[in-house]
């Protein structure tokens, strides 16, 4: 959070510090509009209007004065910040040869503050664990954005990696494919989030590449990654499951009908690669809404 505050205009920092910064989940910044803080279900209007030059300044500071070094992330619409936080970016999207090459004239930022919440997976983990075989079921956790999926899989990674003595679950080797650096917040070889003692991390790598690397080199018993649903994901998840590795992934959606509208996830479900799909409650973070056994 200190890094984020350092990147913001001084007047805005003063406004933010009037509130409990530990409870801030999102800082919404839009050009010519007041800055909004999201604290769980509470939204606070700071009545501090920000201009487009200030937004560019914020992005430049977040990129450590080197926007070019974050070009690939900006093309994806976000910047991953130290500590696993993420700033989503919106504005004029520049397309060249059918591909996004830049976001010029940034209009808005959504700074999402990552929180490591102890025991965030309390309600979910019982649906994931395969205690009989001391591993996890191939599971997909589904919810709309902002319902705590990443926080949950981070906590699951930590618990299955360390082991859960209460239920005699012995720690297993876990590999996190941290495509956006949000799960483990790895920076210069140091994981700023605790993801367990038997966890390996492949950071800033596409799942299609990272999962293959992990299976070949790190011999994981479980692989954890965030936000599946891309074209390459079917093949790589199939490869992982066929290799005998247990998988835990997340996807966006609010119900089964929503989920199967995504062609790639529909294919994965039809191939019966997942044993369970866990839907999270949209109102209470970390709470399970329903579970579908495939």
């Amino acid at each position, binding site marked *: 959070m200190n890094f984020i505050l350092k990147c913001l205009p001084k007047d805005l920092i003063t406004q933010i510090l009037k509130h409990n910064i530990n409870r801030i989940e999102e800082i919404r910044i839009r050009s010519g509009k007041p800055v909004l803080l999201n604290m769980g279900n509470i939204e606070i209007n700071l009545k501090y209007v920000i201009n487009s030059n200030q937004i*560019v*300044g914020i992005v*430049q*500071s977040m*990129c*450590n*004065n*080197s*926007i*070019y*070094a974050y*070009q690939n992330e*900006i093309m994806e619409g976000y910047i991953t910040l130290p500590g696993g936080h993420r700033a989503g970016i919106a504005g004029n999207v520049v397309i060249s040869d059918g591909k996004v*090459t*830049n976001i010029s004239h940034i209009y808005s930022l959504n700074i999402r503050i990552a929180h490591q919440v102890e025991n965030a997976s309390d309600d979910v983990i019982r649906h994931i664990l395969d205690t009989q075989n001391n591993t996890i079921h191939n599971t997909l956790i589904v919810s709309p954005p902002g319902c705590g999926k990443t926080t949950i899989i981070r906590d699951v990674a930590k618990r299955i990696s360390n082991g859960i003595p209460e239920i005699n679950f012995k720690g297993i080797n876990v590999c996190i494919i941290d495509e956006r650096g949000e799960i483990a917040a790895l920076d210069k070889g140091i994981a700023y989030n605790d993801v367990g003692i038997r966890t390996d991390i492949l950071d800033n790598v596409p799942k299609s590449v990272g999962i293959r690397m992990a299976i070949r080199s790190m011999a994981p018993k479980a692989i954890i990654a965030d936000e599946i649903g891309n074209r390459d994901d079917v093949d790589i998840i199939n490869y992982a499951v066929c290799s005998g590795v247990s998988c835990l992934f997340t996807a966006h959606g609010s119900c089964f009908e929503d989920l199967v509208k995504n062609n790639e996830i529909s294919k994965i479900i039809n191939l019966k690669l997942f044993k369970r799909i866990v839907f999270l409650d949209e109102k209470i973070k970390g709470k399970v809404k329903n579970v579908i056994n495939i």
Partner: protein
Amino acid sequence: MIFVKFIILAAVFGTSSLIGIKLASGYKVRANNLKQMKKALKILEAKITYTYDKLPDLFLEISNKIGGDVGNLFFDVGRNMQLEFAGEAWEQCIEKSNLSITHDDKEALKSLGKLLGSTNMQGQLEQLHLVNDFLDEQIKEAVESKKKNETMYKKLGVIVGLAVVIVLI
């Protein structure tokens, strides 16, 4: 008495020659500073292109490689960048620097600050190319000035010194 007069005349001659040498060395130092600056910016360009490292790290790294006044400038910019925008840090350090360069040289170098760190790769490289092209012209001009003026000022220092000595004798 003659001995004192001889010392005074020698001092006048020496001072005049030294002033000439000092004026001449200004041309040499300017050309060297511009060449060093060009070298540093070329390294910066290559590093940005191939390593994607962040600017503060690159400036500090280049300061170790280049040394001298340009190295010191890069060190100051790299350090200040951690607290302020890259462009501001660059412009302020150029303004305060001890480089023996002209006002035009300074203004052209400061123009790099307008976009430093605030654009994509293409923007950074284009800006660096512009400044490098300008430096090429300035280096050429500085080398010609050095050739033309360095010897002239040295000789002028000696001649003026001699002239004063002759008059005083």
